[in-house]
């Protein structure tokens, strides 16, 4: 449950969906299915682009406003990276099933929580992107997200990547940022009190995680230096996951 654990992912875990992925990192496990492009319902139909439908389902209890909020954030970000104009009048459906969330051993959790939960965002985001890639849905670019908290520690403020539930509890502010593989900022949501300086630090930390410059420099080549400060290298992670999938798919080549 510490930030240093490496993410794990598997693609094509659901045999009947067009694309699927299971992803676990920092105590969160999420399974996603992608179906599409399929026929959209009349009310979702858009004459020039595909409608991206995101559904987030909690592990226990019924989804509430918290899930609706996460869905709307994901929906707008994914619409940006999917080439929606390629599939007018259709629907691309992403269903995210949360399987596991890190438990706070010091509190007995309530089933329905109204508070926002930014810490789960990176897991949801990564799973959706992996499932979309597994389904072969055409995209403008890949993307990765990360959660960063500003936690007071011994009077000073410390920036924590992938905070645990306990750290979120004491954090002054929590941020979620996502970057595309072209290093564009795709998503930034913040909660709590923070200064512009703090936000800049957060931004830098997140960017370092989501788009390690090494991989762009060397083109297709893989660089595997895991032990860099600040957390996992999401871009490498995506690439290596996909590589194994593609190699397996095209074993006959």
């Amino acid at each position, binding site marked *: 449950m510490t930030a240093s654990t490496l993410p794990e992912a598997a693609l094509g875990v659901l045999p009947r969906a067009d694309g699927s992925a299971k992803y676990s990192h920092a105590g969160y496990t999420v399974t996603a299915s992608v179906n599409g492009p399929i026929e959209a*319902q009349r009310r979702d139909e858009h004459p020039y682009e595909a409608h991206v439908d995101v559904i987030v389902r909690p592990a226990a209890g019924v989804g509430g406003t918290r899930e609706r909020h996460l869905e709307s954030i994901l929906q707008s970000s994914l619409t940006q990276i999917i080439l929606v104009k390629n599939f007018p009048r259709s629907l691309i459906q992403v269903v995210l099933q949360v399987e596991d969330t890190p438990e706070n051993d010091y509190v007995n959790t309530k*089933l329905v929580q109204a508070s926002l939960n930014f810490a789960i965002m990176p897991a949801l985001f990564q799973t959706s992107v992996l499932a979309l890639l597994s389904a072969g849905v055409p995209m403008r670019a890949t993307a990765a997200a990360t959660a960063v908290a500003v936690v007071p520690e011994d009077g000073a403020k410390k920036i924590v990547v992938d905070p645990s539930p306990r750290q979120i509890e004491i954090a002054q502010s929590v941020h979620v940022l996502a970057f595309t593989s072209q290093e564009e900022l795709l998503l930034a949501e913040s909660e709590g009190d923070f200064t512009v300086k703090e936000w800049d630090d957060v931004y830098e930390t997140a960017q370092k995680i989501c788009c390690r410059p090494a991989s762009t420099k060397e083109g297709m080549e893989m660089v595997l230096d895991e032990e860099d400060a600040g957390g996992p290298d999401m871009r490498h992670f995506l690439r290596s996951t996909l590589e194994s999938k593609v190699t397996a798919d095209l074993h006959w080549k």
Partner: protein
Amino acid sequence: MPREAEPSLNEREFVLKALQENTRLDGRELDQYRPLELTFGDQYGVADVTLGKTRVLAKASAEVTVPYTDRPLDGIFNIATELSPMTSPAFEVNRPTETEVLISRLLEKTVRRSGALDTESLCLVAGQKCWSIRVDVHVLSHDGNLIDAACFAVVAALRHFRKPDTSMEGGVLTVYTPAEREPVPLSWLHSPFCITWSFFGEEGEIALLDATWLEEQVRVGSCTISLNKHGEICQIAKLGGTPVEAVALLQCTNVALSRAKDFSAFLDRKLAEDAKRRDKGGLLAELSAENDR
């Protein structure tokens, strides 16, 4: 909502014709289940069941709440089955389909009404505080026979589940966090399992177990029998469909009983394996000893 695609006439005819020759598309015997797999999560009360391409995840959870006024001495126990579009794009959020209602009723009758969980043991303070146990059933992939898989997952999740320990001292109720005291298992009375027969042919004369989705679309009727290993029927549901000879139904029940015993033994084994895995270095024993103090 896009409609569920129906099998073509060729598929319907072929499935039936093959069954008349005692052949199933995946080469199974008529009374043979697909390989059943069960994995428990890192947390207590998470059971992931796969049956061929069907995959169901059940998660049990507990919270302290107020009991219903008409049953002050009972805890609350609910099974939630909502089929998400992950199961199939034909399912819509918040609009229960007939399939969903029937699955939910079957699980309710099999597990809840048969008294598998002792709800009285969930009572903490009569009329004021009790445990509410909830099982969420998530169907991740649907390739037929959801009912048997879901029922197995629910029973497995509940037997694996641990709820926080509590104590009553001087009228003060304390609920211990997992860090303070190791959680305790539920008071479980018996383990019922669903076994679903599907019928084919003009007079429902061909019966088979564990139908795939295609077989389910072609069948003319089905009968779900819930039993525990003690030979007690918890529920039978043949809800219409082509009429089947009464004698054949009795035979189906007898076969179902032996399957239920198999399931029961399989689950016991898996639970034991999991307990062993968690108990590395006798940590559990140490913790429970701590609890005793």
